[in-house]
């Protein structure tokens, strides 16, 4: 493959934007991809008011400001990562990011996922939420307060037991190619009176997952599995060990139309609980 992968980073000069930038840096270091740091500006439109709103003038001032913000973002990029900056106009932020991903033929969109103003560690913001419903490429969600580690040591892949899990594995085959990290397959199960044998089933399922993956993948790093158990998904997630230098891949819901992301309920609940970045891969 001669093509260098690239990731769209959804930047804004806020904590959300800086978290996205940090995750972009972490991912770029892992895969050698380039970053396309994008600020989306509202498309100019005549405001139906009694005073001329000076639209063109405002657009040029806005662009000037966006350039300052982008320069600041570029200044935060470490020497080992390549990045370009872009100001775009679109009807909405998510639409602009999707257009950018299409234009740059990007492999991922990286976005700060936290909702502004709420205390929840991982309540999804409107832009991230819109992307999850519409993106044809994986969306990487940076948690609140995320800082890029020196390098990522582990990739976890959350695999459900319901039909359709193979499609995420197929994606992982290509994503993990040539990476020098530990790859861990994780299954979360609810354990209570009604789901007695669930943990045993999950372990057997993961063994099948490993076989499926080994058959297809060209991956030389350590492969591990883990079963998370708990009264509910949050509990199961919190009961597992997570590292600050790891990322988690999850598949999108089977409810989504082909190659459109949609977060299933398990992934959605993981997102609210996990302290590590989540990358949602379209089915």
């Amino acid at each position, binding site marked *: 493959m001669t093509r260098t992968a690239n990731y769209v980073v959804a930047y804004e000069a*806020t904590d959300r*934007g800086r978290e996205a930038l940090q995750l972009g840096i972490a991912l770029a270091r892992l895969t050698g991809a380039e970053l396309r740091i994008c600020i989306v500006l509202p498309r100019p439109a005549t405001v139906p008011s009694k005073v001329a709103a000076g639209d063109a003038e405002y657009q040029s001032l806005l662009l000037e400001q966006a350039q300052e913000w982008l320069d600041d973002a570029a200044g935060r990029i470490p020497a080992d990562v390549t990045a370009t900056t872009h100001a775009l106009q679109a009807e909405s932020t998510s639409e602009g990011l999707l257009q950018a991903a299409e234009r740059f033929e990007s492999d991922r969109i990286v976005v700060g996922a936290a909702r502004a103003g709420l205390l929840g560690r991982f309540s999804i913001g409107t832009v991230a939420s819109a992307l999850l419903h519409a993106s044809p490429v994986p969306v990487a969600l940076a948690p609140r307060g995320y800082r890029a580690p020196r390098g990522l040591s582990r990739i976890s892949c959350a695999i459900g037991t319901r039909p359709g899990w193979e499609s995420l594995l197929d994606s992982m085959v290509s994503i993990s190619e040539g990476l020098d990290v530990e790859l861990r397959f994780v299954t979360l199960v609810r354990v209570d009176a009604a789901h007695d044998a669930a943990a045993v089933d999950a372990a057997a399922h993961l063994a099948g997952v490993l076989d499926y993956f080994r058959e297809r993948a060209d991956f030389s790093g350590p492969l591990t599995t883990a079963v998370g158990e708990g009264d509910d998904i949050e509990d199961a997630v919190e009961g597992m060990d997570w590292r600050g230098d790891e990322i988690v891949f999850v598949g999108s819901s089977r409810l989504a139309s082909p190659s459109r992301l949609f977060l299933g309920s398990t992934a959605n609940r993981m997102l609210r609980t996990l302290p590590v970045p989540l990358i949602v891969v379209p089915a």
Partner: protein
Amino acid sequence: MTRTSSPPPATPGGTDSATGLSTKGLSAGSIGLLGATVIGISCIAPAYTLTASLGPTVAAVGTQMPGIFLVGFLPMLLVALGYRELNNAMPDNGTSFTWATRAFGPWIGWLGGWGLIVATVVVLSNLAGIAVDFLYLALAQIVGDPSIADLAANTWVNIGTCLVFMAAACYISYRGMETTKAVQYVLVAFQLVVLVWFSVAALAQVAGGTAFDALAFSWEWFNPFALSSFSAFAAGVSLSIFIFWGWDVTLTMNEETKNPKTTPGRAATLTVAIIFVLYILVAVASLMFAGTGTGALGLGNEDIQGNVFAALAGPVMGPFAILMSLAVLSSSAASLQSTFVGPARTMLAMGHYKAFPARFARISPRFKSPSFATLVAAAVAWGFYAVMRVLSTDVLTDTILTLGMMICFYYGVTALACVWYFRRVAFSSVRSFLLKFLAPLIGGVILAVIFATTLVDSMNPDYGSGSEIGGVGLVFILGVFLLLAGVVLMFVMRAANPAFFRGETLRRGAPTE
């Protein structure tokens, strides 16, 4: 697509910057004649404008209202032609502030920007005031309890409700949200239907002999020169400029239209044709139904003057008066929200060029809207309204009269800025002479005369609602206070940060540069 516009900055890691605005995108140039006309009518907000201006206009010119409406369009047309030339010559400078600064230098430029800000702050307070009245009227009509409508007369309820409207509109603007095209279409169609309905119902009552104070129609109403005094004429023209205010915006919308060469001009023509027919229809129907007397529903009644549809819609439209309430409420609420954008962006530009303190130039990194400037516009507009509510016996009438004066001021400054800016190319062609010189010159001079006349006349304590302070009319005190406050603030800014006033941030220019 993305075009490189600046050299890569020397940042570590081989970061290069390829920033460019994506060429105006897919939906650029998507607005046709109908869409542009809808935007034009939205700008004018006829339901709001008529309810606010019919009373004060009748008070000034009586039955000559239709004629004054016709003649009042002339200065608006002349100034708008100049606006269009400035907009084409300096597309990146889009407000009275930057145009006047480029033409006349920082001092007059500053005052031009100030005039626009003041005019919009005053109209924001009037829009909110009308919205408050109609909110309680609509509630009363829905619940069937007329006493709810009287809540609007309670000063503190009124000021509190106004604060809620202001806060909501400010929040929507701050979030950078815009009225969608579909909503605009519905609002405009609704206003037009209801206003025609009102006129037809009023004329039907005249024909059926049930009108409140039937006046026989007379062609003489269309003669603006039948007025007894120039003062009445000037006051009428000042109000007429208010009723067409917003029309010029249509002329400056270029890039969004399917055909930037023809669409804006045609849309502006179609807009003004529709508005003319509508205004004349409503003005004639109102006169014929209610007369100009001071009776309960008479247009000369000071108690109903500031908001005539609130009083007339019930008797004219019967149970369907609720539609008028909803039309005016939606029209003024939508206009309230969109009107925030103008002063906020002007203050932002003034902050950017250091004519205002730097914090006015702040842009919200999340919503990409002028953050501080929007909040200031809301706070000042509400504060102005609250003070006026307490001081004036008829806040709506007095704010409209003040507004007419302020619009004359900043339109006049802008028109003369056009003349001065283009002075060297004015005689290069017949077209230049007419559009860049003669039209804005005549328009500017008319506005200057109207401004001076109404300013002098408003010293009379009987002017407007008759509110006065120390024997001087409230409208005069307001007008002078607002303009002098601008002059004082200008000198304060000059002392605090002289860069703008030395021409270091925004230079004078000429079209040859």
